[in-house]
Each structure stands twice: as C-alpha cells, then as structure tokens.
C-alpha cells in the first residue's frame, strides 16, 4: 500500500507540474489578466486569481492561490489595499522571492495612476476606506495605458529575450486603446451630468471620466451592507432630486439596487465592472463597449 501510494503521489506530482511558458503571470483581478494577455500574448501563461463574480475585497487566501503564486514570475494586482485581506498572506505563504513586493516581479497598478478620494482622516468609523485612495481604477480606461506601459517594461525585465516583442505589443495596444477611448468619449457624450446612484463607491473613476454625477450610495459606509433605514433615506432623496439610474457591479447583489429602482421608477443597471462581469464584456475593449452601451440604454429609458 505505501509503495502504491508513493507511485500515485509521484505520478500526480509529475502530471500536476506547471506547463513551462516563458513567464508565469499571476493576475489578482480579471482586468489585469486581460491586460497581460494583450501585452504578453502566448509568451506568457496567465492565472487570474479572481473572477468578475467575486468581490476583490473579500477573497480568501485559498490553497490554490498559494500554489499558483509559488510558480509566478510576475504578480500584477490593483494594490492600494484592495487585496489587503488576502494577498499579503498569499505572498508570504507562497515562499517565492521572485514576486517580493518592491522587486520587478511585483506590480501594483494603483501606484501608476493618481488616485481619487484619498481620505484625509483614517478611521474605521468611516467604513472600509483605503488609505491610499479609491482602488477601483480600472473603470476609467485611460488608467490602463500607464499600467500597460509598466507591465511591458516589467515583462521585458523578467524575459529580456522578448523585451522588444512586449514593447511592440504594448505600442499596438496603446494605439488601439487610445482610438477606442476617443470613440467611447464621443458615444458617451449624452451621459455628461446624468445623475446616478451607485451601490458601492467603486465607480468614481468611471464617473469622473464620463462626467456622470454621483448623487448617493446604497451602502451607508463603504463596505457596510445597505440597511433599510439608509435605503429609505436614499429613496427620499431621489424622490425630491431625481436620478436617472442606479448602478451596481456584476459581483454585487442586485437586491438593494432593484428595491430602490422599483420605488424610484428608474432602471437598475448592472455593469460588468471588469472583464467577464457580463457576457458582453469579453475583453478590455468589450468591457467599456458594454459599460457605455448599458449606461446609454438606461439613460434613454427613464421608466426602467
């Protein structure tokens, strides 16, 4: 029995060994996995640690994540404390010096863009606030450009032989994406000044980009689930000061948004939030196509 067990274990170890691509990328969120796909192509092997249906704040340091981080050459995360509840532990347990914070194998996207809503006072009575500012940067496509640039630089550092290929892919991505951004801004022009209610404060970059107006939040404090009392307050506010839609992310429960939508007679809009959040958000371009299409549809359909 022990002999057979040893053979079984050895076989399993061999078959479970990771496929050897040039660079193993561990992406904390789907948007960074999609970006790594664009910049790395088949020169990299990508593992997305979370799906679009998961709340990136609320992930657990599962054994599978630790095993994948062990094999990673590059970790790309949002940073700004978004993954503070799981990544520090994954990194420590993975025992992988290649992805140590501060080294070339550890990239926090939020360090490359200017963050909004940096709290002046850090106190947990304010809810689940992030000391560095709002971490949900991927809702503004312009934030992806500097991240793509840094990502290609890091990939080139780790895999010097293919540095030129990464640079070329990044340049192609930047050109295509800049064009797309111009197109989105044009299409989304009617959304300027449109007043909205958001479920959680994770749309600030999108709102700033498109010039929407955030009138209220369904959560009384960031990270605190909406209570009945607070929802009634929001309802009273939107009755006296109407909004055009209620926005929630695909990973969030739609219940509170739908409750308010029914009573305020405005549509509740589910946005993908990241790649794969909704069926029409298959890649980074699709993510913003879908986001803007859904916003426009809601804005032109006042009754919901």
């Amino acid at each position: 029995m022990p002999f057979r067990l040893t053979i079984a274990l050895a076989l399993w170890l061999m078959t479970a060994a990771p496929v050897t691509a040039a660079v193993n990328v561990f992406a904390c969120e789907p948007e960074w996995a999609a970006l790594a796909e664009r910049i790395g192509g088949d020169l990299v092997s990508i593992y997305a640690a979370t799906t679009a249906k998961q709340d990136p704040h609320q992930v657990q340091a599962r054994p599978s994540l630790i095993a994948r981080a062990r094999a990673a050459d590059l970790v790309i995360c949002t940073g700004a404390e978004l993954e503070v509840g799981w990544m520090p532990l994954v990194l420590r347990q993975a025992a992988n010096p290649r992805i140590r914070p501060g080294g070339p194998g550890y990239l926090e996207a939020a360090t490359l863009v200017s963050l909004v809503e940096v709290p002046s006072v850090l106190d947990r009575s304010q809810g689940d606030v992030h000391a560095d500012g709002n971490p949900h940067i991927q809702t503004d496509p312009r934030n992806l450009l500097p991240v793509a640039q840094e990502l290609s630089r890091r990939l080139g550092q780790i895999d010097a032989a293919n540095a030129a290929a990464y640079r070329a892919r990044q340049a192609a991505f930047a050109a295509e994406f800049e064009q797309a951004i111009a197109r989105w801004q044009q299409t989304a022009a009617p959304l300027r000044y449109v007043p909205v209610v958001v479920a959680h404060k994770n749309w600030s970059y999108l709102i700033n980009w498109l010039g929407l107006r955030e009138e209220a939040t369904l959560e009384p404090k960031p990270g605190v689930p909406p209570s009945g009392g607070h929802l009634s307050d929001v309802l009273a506010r939107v009755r006296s000061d109407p909004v055009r839609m209620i926005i929630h992310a695909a990973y969030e429960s739609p219940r509170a948004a739908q409750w308010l939508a029914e009573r305020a007679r405005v549509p509740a809009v589910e946005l993908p939030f990241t790649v794969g959040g909704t069926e029409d958000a298959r890649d980074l371009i699709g993510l913003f196509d879908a986001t803007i299409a859904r916003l426009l549809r809601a804005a032109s359909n006042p009754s919901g």
Partner: protein
Amino acid sequence: MLAVPSLSLAATADDLAAIRDAIRQLEQRRQEDQARIEMLERRLSDADAQLRTVRSGQVSSPASTQPAPSASTTAMRRPTTANLPAAARPGVTSGPSFGTRGGSASAFNPAIGAVLQGTFSHFSRDPDNRVPGFMVGEEATIGDRGFSLGETEINLSASVDHLFYAEATLAHPREGGVEVEEAFVQTTGLPWGLTVKGGRFFSGIGYMNEQHSHAWDFIDPALPYRVMLNTQYGDDGIQLRWLAPTEHFLEFGAEGFRGDSFPATATNNGKGSVAAFVRTGGDFGASHSWLAGLSYLHADADNRATNADTFTGGSDLGIASLVYKWAPGGNPSERNLKLQGEFFYRDEDGTFNGLAYSGRQFGWYAHAVFQFMPQWRLGARYDQLSARALGAEFAGTTLDDLGRNPRRVSGLLEYETSEFGRFRLQYNHDRATQETNHEVFLNYVVSIGAHGAHKY
C-alpha cells in the same frame, strides 16, 4: 448673488428657471475646469514618464535600481499619503516606501494591531475543568462564570529587511500578566519554495492550531484541542516548510521544539518535541475549495501532573484534518458555508503513578458554520473523546473515564458589524463530565489597528 433678493421678493417661474440655468452653467464650468486639471495632470505624468525613460537610459543597468521608479513618482504626486500606509499593511511593508517620507521616523513603524475579547458566561453547574479519563494541561479550562476579559492581544509585524519578516504577539492571558504568545522571524527570500521560521510560534499541526483564538469559528476550542493540546500547541523552536512546485497546493513542514509545552513538560531533561505535517488543497470549480492535512507530534513528559497523578513517558499524536468551504461563484460576501472536522489519535507510553501505562486515546470534532445572509452566521458543532479501556489498577485516577465518553453539542449565532467587530452567542450542551452542564457564552471580538489577513 444678485438674483437672491429677487428670489425672496417675487420668485416667478422664469426667475427660477434662470437660476437653474445659471447653476447648471456654473456646474458645467466646474466640470470643464476639472477636466482641464485632469488633462494637465495627465500631461505632467506623461512628461514624468518620459523623463524617467531618459533617466533609466543613462543608468548603466536599470534592473539594479531596486525601488521601482514609478513608485517614487507616485509619491511625488501624492506627498501627504504616498506609501504612508506601508506600516498599516501587514506583509506589504517591504519595498518602495523608503526615501519618500523624509525624516519621518514613524514611517518605519511595524503594523500594529490589537484584538480585544470579552465574554459573559453562564454555567448551570460549577465550572469543572476535569475531563474524566484524560490528563489535561493548565489552559484546558472551560472559563470563568460571569464577565471576563478574554485573551487580549497586541500584534506587531513588519519586514525586517529584504530577507526576513518578523511578527510578535503579546497576550494578556486570563491568569494576568503579559505573555509572549508568538515572537518569530520568518524568511521571505529563500529559493525553491522553502520557508524557515524560528522563535516562539504556534505549531503548524492540525488546522486550528496555528490560528489565533480570535479567528476560531467557535468561542472555545473543540475538546480534542482542549484536552490533547492544552487548547493550542506553541513553543520555542524552528520550523521548515516546503511548498511543492505543483499547480496543486502541496506543502510539507517539519518542526523542532524546546519541548516545554503540554503534552511535554518543562522538566524533561532537555528532550525536545518534534512535529511534522503535510497539507494539500485546491478548488472544485469556482464555488468549492478544500484543505486537508495530516500531522504528527512527538513529545516527552517527565512527571506531568494532572490533579495528584503524574505521567512520565512519550506521547505521540496524529491528527487528520479536513476543511471544505462553499461560496456561490467564489463570492462569500452574501452566503457561504464552512465544514471543518479533525480526528485525533494519541498514544502515550510510560509510567503513570509508577504503574506501566500504555494508553490509546481518540478525539474528534466536526462543525459547520453557515453565513445565511451578510453579517449573520449560524453554527453547529459536535465534539467527542474516547479512550481505550484500562485495567482496574487505574480506577479512581484521572485516567478513569467512569465508563463513558466525554462529548458536547454546541450551537452558535454570530453577528458581525464589519470584519473588525464580531458578536457571538454560543450554547454548549456539555457532557465532558458526568453531569450535563448547560453553558451559554456571549462574546465580542474586536480588532483595531492593522489587522493581518486571516489564513484559509
């Protein structure tokens, strides 16, 4: 401004419309200014990036510049907050935070957190810490009646340098005073998936052993932990872990300890305790995950006393652990379920009160905790111990199990105000002793300051 008096005097519909229009225009101007500021900021950052590229071109080897240049530019842009929370972020402390907070010594402060616990307990019978049939350690109590401050702990952690991480937990135990619960240094820079940890720490055996008590699902430890490990096995020693390079999580660990803690005794002629464990785990689809482990602990006891009885000899303990978690689509925020169970087998050989003794003892528990809606959890637990029958010469001693197996059934209701505040109500139908004890606990656990991520 001039429109205001006219509003108070004769506010016609036209006036109101004009005011609305003016407000809208002002708002529009504000937004446009904002957009212009953003555009300028963007240009600045682009220029910054170009400058960076030029600079890195001049430096002979760009790879050797350790702090990512991008980090320092970000710091310049956000001078008041940049990297300040490095101290508040356990585990993310090393790295590009130096040089940005000129002269501020506190920037290097470790992450500091405190966990406060308090319990109100009601027992239908006097608390009786004996468990007939089993020798127990000093910590293996069911607690005090009435109000009591549970274990209060202060945790400090930070990277030492680019090769080490260190963590210390000071606890205020029930008996009073201050105790160093854990104080260890751990490597972060070893190759091949190796980690070495040294100092005082909770052993990696079992599933619950390594977790701090405030992270447990139930207020009190399960019977096997309470009786066979004196609630938790921690000691001074060294640990080596190896994480196999497989896609599937597979971890091996070996430990050597000073050998002072129960089931060993401080006076064991310098004989140490040794432990080993192997753990594996993974996912089934997006919604299911699991962790399984096998552990072994060997300890030597010299005149280990419980009540008036003493044991001298070797103690071997094996633990099999299994944890399963369910979260729909991998998102636990709304609903989730955790099933956890462990089986203990202990073999102690030596002399008991001078009599030759060879005892086989078993213990197991299984519990389920279900979060049925955000912030609310329900739990149920069963735990039990049993021992192989001994000869008549042990009748009347601590090892006399009085012909029955100690067991309990527990129920739990938990409400959390946030991830930092937990309030729990627990009931134990406790039949560890001969007469049933109905135990009710009301407990809070709050965490302030930096709070490290919890283990799976």
